[in-house]
C-alpha cells in the first residue's frame, strides 16, 4: 500500500511482490506504532505492547484458517459464531462437568472442526456457494448459542484458574496467547509453502478447472480447508474463554468481518490463489495497532473503523492495480505472438 512505492516495473515477480506486500504491512505496523509512540510515550510500554499482541491474537488466529479458505476462492463467514459457541460450550463443561483443563482445548478444536466439516461438506458435495453456506451457519450457530446460554453466562469464578492462566500469563514478557498464535501462524505458514496438499489450495483458487485437470482432488482439499478454519476458530473459542473468562452469547459477534478485513489488508487475494497466513496475521496486527493508536492519541474510536475500511479499499485497489498491470503486460506480450503471419502460411512445411 503506501509504504511501498515504485514496485512492479513491467513484469513483476510475484513471489517478491508478495514478500514485499508482507514487508509493507509490517512496515505500516511500525509506522503507526512509531507515530503513536511519538504522541504518547506510554504506547511503547511493555504493558501496552502486550495488549497490542493479545488484542490481535484472536483475529490473527481466525485469519489463518480464513486464509486457507479464501485462497481456494471460498469464504468462511461462520468463524465468529464458531468461536462464540466453542467458548461457551467449553466454559459450560468446566462449570458443570469439571473436565480437565487440557480437554477444554481438545473439545473446542473438535467442535470447531466438526462445524467446519459441515461447511465443507455442503460446499463441496452439494456445491452450494460457501458464502451462503457459512452465512447460514453463522445464523444457525448464533441461534443455538443463544438457546444454550439462555441467560446463564459463564463467569470468571467458574473457569479453572489453570485454564484462565493461558489468557494472562507471559513468558519473558510475551503473552502466552501471542505465542500460541505465533506458533500456529508459523506452522501453517510453513506448511502452506512446503507441502503438496497445501500448494493444491493455491492451485484450486488460481484456476479451478486446471486444478481438476492436474488431478488435484479439489473437493477433499477445500473440505480440509474448511475443517482447518473451523478447528482454528474452535481453538480461538478456547483462547477467548481463557482471555476473558466470561462468555455470553455475544462472544465473537462480528469477528468474521474483522477477520476477512485483516486477511485482505494482509494481502490475501479475495478471489483466491494468492496470499499467505503471515500476511493475514500481520493484517490483523495492523488493524489492531491502528485501533489502539487512535485510543492512545485520544481520537474518537469510531475513526478506527473508518480507517480499517479505508485500508481495506486501499488493499483491494492495490490488488486490482497489480493485476491490471500484469494483465496489460500479458496483452502486449500476447500481441507479439498472436498472428501467425502471412509468411508462416506461405512457407510449406
Amino acid at each position: 500500500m503506501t509504504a511501498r512505492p515504485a514496485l512492479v516495473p513491467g513484469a513483476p515477480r510475484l513471489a517478491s511482490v508478495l514478500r514485499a506486500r508482507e514487508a509493507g504491512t509490517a512496515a505500516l505496523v511500525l509506522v503507526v506504532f512509531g507515530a503513536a509512540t511519538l504522541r504518547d510515550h506510554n504506547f511503547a510500554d511493555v504493558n501496552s505492547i502486550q495488549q497490542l499482541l493479545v488484542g490481535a491474537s484472536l483475529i490473527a488466529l481466525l485469519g489463518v484458517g480464513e486464509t486457507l479458505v479464501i485462497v481456494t476462492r471460498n469464504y468462511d463467514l461462520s468463524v465468529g459464531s464458531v468461536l462464540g459457541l466453542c467458548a461457551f460450550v467449553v466454559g459450560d463443561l468446566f462449570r458443570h462437568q469439571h473436565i480437565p483443563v487440557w480437554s477444554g482445548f481438545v473439545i473446542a478444536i473438535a467442535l470447531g472442526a466438526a462445524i467446519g466439516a459441515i461447511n465443507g461438506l455442503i460446499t463441496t458435495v452439494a456445491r452450494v456457494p460457501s458464502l451462503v453456506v457459512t452465512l447460514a451457519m453463522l445464523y444457525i450457530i448464533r441461534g443455538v448459542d443463544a438457546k444454550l446460554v439462555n441467560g446463564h453466562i459463564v463467569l470468571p469464578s467458574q473457569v479453572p484458574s489453570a485454564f484462565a492462566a493461558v489468557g494472562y500469563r507471559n513468558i519473558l514478557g510475551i503473552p502466552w496467547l501471542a505465542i500460541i498464535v505465533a506458533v500456529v501462524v508459523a506452522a501453517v505458514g510453513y506448511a502452506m509453502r512446503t507441502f503438496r496438499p497445501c500448494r493444491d489450495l493455491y492451485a484450486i483458487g488460481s484456476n479451478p478447472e486446471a486444478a481438476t485437470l492436474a488431478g488435484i482432488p479439489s473437493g477433499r482439499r477445500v473440505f480440509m480447508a474448511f475443517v482447518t478454519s473451523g478447528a482454528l476458530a474452535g481453538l480461538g473459542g478456547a483462547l477467548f474463554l481463557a482471555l476473558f473468562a466470561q462468555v455470553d452469547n455475544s462472544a465473537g459477534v462480528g469477528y468474521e468481518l474483522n477477520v476477512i478485513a485483516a486477511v485482505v489488508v494482509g494481502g490475501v487475494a479475495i478471489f483466491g490463489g494468492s496470499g499467505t497466513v503471515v500476511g493475514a496475521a500481520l493484517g490483523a496486527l495492523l488493524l489492531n495497532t491502528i485501533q489502539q493508536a487512535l485510543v492512545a492519541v485520544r481520537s474518537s474510536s469510531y475513526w478506527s473503523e473508518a480507517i480499517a475500511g479505508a485500508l481495506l479499499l486501499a488493499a483491494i485497489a492495490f490488488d486490482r492495480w497489480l493485476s491490471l498491470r500484469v494483465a496489460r503486460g500479458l496483452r502486449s506480450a500476447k500481441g507479439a505472438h498472436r498472428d501467425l503471419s502471412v509468411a508462416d502460411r506461405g512457407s510449406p512445411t
Partner: protein
Amino acid sequence: MSGGPASAASRGASADPGPGGSGQAGTVLHLRHAAKAFGAVQALTDGSIELYPGEAHGLVGENGAGKSTLVKILAGVYQPDAGELIIDGEPVTFAGPAAARAAGVAVIYQEPTLFPDLSVAENIFMGRQPVRTGRRIDRAAMSRESVAIFAQLGVALDPARPARGLSVADQQIVEIAKALSLEARVLVMDEPTAALTNVEVDRLFKVMAALRRRGAAVLFISHRLEEVFAGCQRVTIMRDGRFVLTAPATELDVDSMIRAMIGRDLGAMFHKTGVTPGETVLEVQDLAREGVFSDVSFAVRRGEIVALAGLVGAGRTEVARAIFGIDQRSSGSVLLLGKPLPGGNPSAAMAAGAAFVPEDRRQEGLVMDMGIDHNVALASMGRLSRGGLIFRSAERKLALTWASRLQLRYGWIGNAVSTLSGGNQQKVVLGKWLARQPALLIIDEPTRGIDVGTKAEVHRILDALAADGVAVLMISSELPEVLGVADRILVLHEGRLAAEFARAEATEDNIMRAATGQAGKDAA
C-alpha cells in the same frame, strides 16, 4: 462406474492393422468404440484410436467431430458411457486425470490450463512437485528440472516468475514442459500450435521427434492439415462423433482428408458474388496512432469486402480498433457515410452504423454463460426495448431470425453460448452485430479456430452480406481466406500501408512480398 462395454457384436472394421495384427509392436493405447453423451447431446458416438510406441498419430475432424471429447476420455476427465480403453493390452478405467497420468498419459489441452498466481516451475510440477525428506517440496530441484526441460525445448523461461503475464505462446511452452516432465508414454496434444509461431512449431516438432525416438506415442490434433502431414506418420479422421478412417499420412492428401472430414466435397471453398461497389461507406484519412501506425488512408464502399493483411505486429488489429474508436487515434480522420466519427468513442461508431467483431470472441464478443438469444440481442437492446423494458419474446424472435439466416447449430435458443462449438459461437457473435444491420462490418480473424466446414459458411455469410450492400473490412492472417473472400487487399507493413491489390491481381506471393517490406514497386 462406467457400464461394462456391451460390445462383442458390433465391431467396426477399421482400416488398419488390429492390435498385434501386424509386424509392428503392440499398441500402447487403444480406445475402442468409446461413446459419451452429455444429457441429450451425443458428443462421441464411436471413438476409436490406436497409438503405437514411437509413432506420431494425427487426429483431424471438424469442430464438434468429437475430438476434444475423445481427448478428455484419454485424459481421464470423462468416463466413457461405452467402449473400452486398453493400455499395454490391459483394459483400464481412469477414475480421474490423476489415474490417466499415472498410467503414462499426458495431455496438452487446447486452452492453456495454467495457474496464474503460481510460479512457472510450480505450474509444471503441480500436484507432483519433487519432494525431499518429510514430503517437503524441494523447490531447488523443481527449479532445476524446469530449467532442464526448457533447455531441451530450447527456450529461456524463468521458472520462478509467475505464470500470470506470460504470452499465449509461452503459456503453451509451459504446457508442453508440463507434459514432458511427466515422461509420458502417450502424449496427447490438442491443438498445441494454435498460438505458436512457426519457429516454435518447428521446435515442437523436434521435441515430438525426440519423444518418438524414446518410444513414446504422440497423438497430435490440429486444424492445420499441413502440420499434420509434416509431423505425423498416421492419421485418424473423425466426423460427427464417429471414427471414419485411419490411414498412413503418405496415402492421404489435403483434398481426401477434407472430404473425409466433412463427408462431401468442399467444391469451390470460396464463393464470390460479383457486386458492383456502391457509394463510399468508410473513409479513413491519414489515420495514425503514435508509435503503432501512421499515414493510413483507404476507403471501403458498399458491397465491398476489403481485407487488411500483414505480418505480426504490422498494426492491422490496431488500425481497426482505432477506426471503431476502441483505441484513441493521434491524428487523422474517419468518415462513416460521409460523417466524421469522433476518436475513442465506440458507441458513437455503433450509433453511426459500424459493427466490430473482435478476434477473441470468448473474451470480448460473448457472454458465455448467457443464452444464445440474449447474446444475439445484446447489441440491439435499444431497438428491442419498449418503454425501458426488454421483452424476452422480442429477443427470441430476433435470435431465431439470425440463427436460421446464419445456419446456427444449436439445441434450444435459450441454451448458454458456452454449449456451442467454436464455429457456432462465432456465428452468434456475427448474429449479434448483424442484428443491428450495420452499414460497416469490421471483422477480425473471422475464422480463427473454426473447422473447415463452418469456415466455408462464414465466408458465404460474408459474401452474402456484401451482396446485401454492407461494407466489410476484414482482418485475416490466412492468405487463402484473404485471396478468396476480399475484393481488395490492403497490406500493412510496420504500421504503414505497403500495397493495395485488386482481387484479380493479388497472389500469395505479391502479398507476402509487400507484407515483408520487400517490395511495393511491383504492386499496382
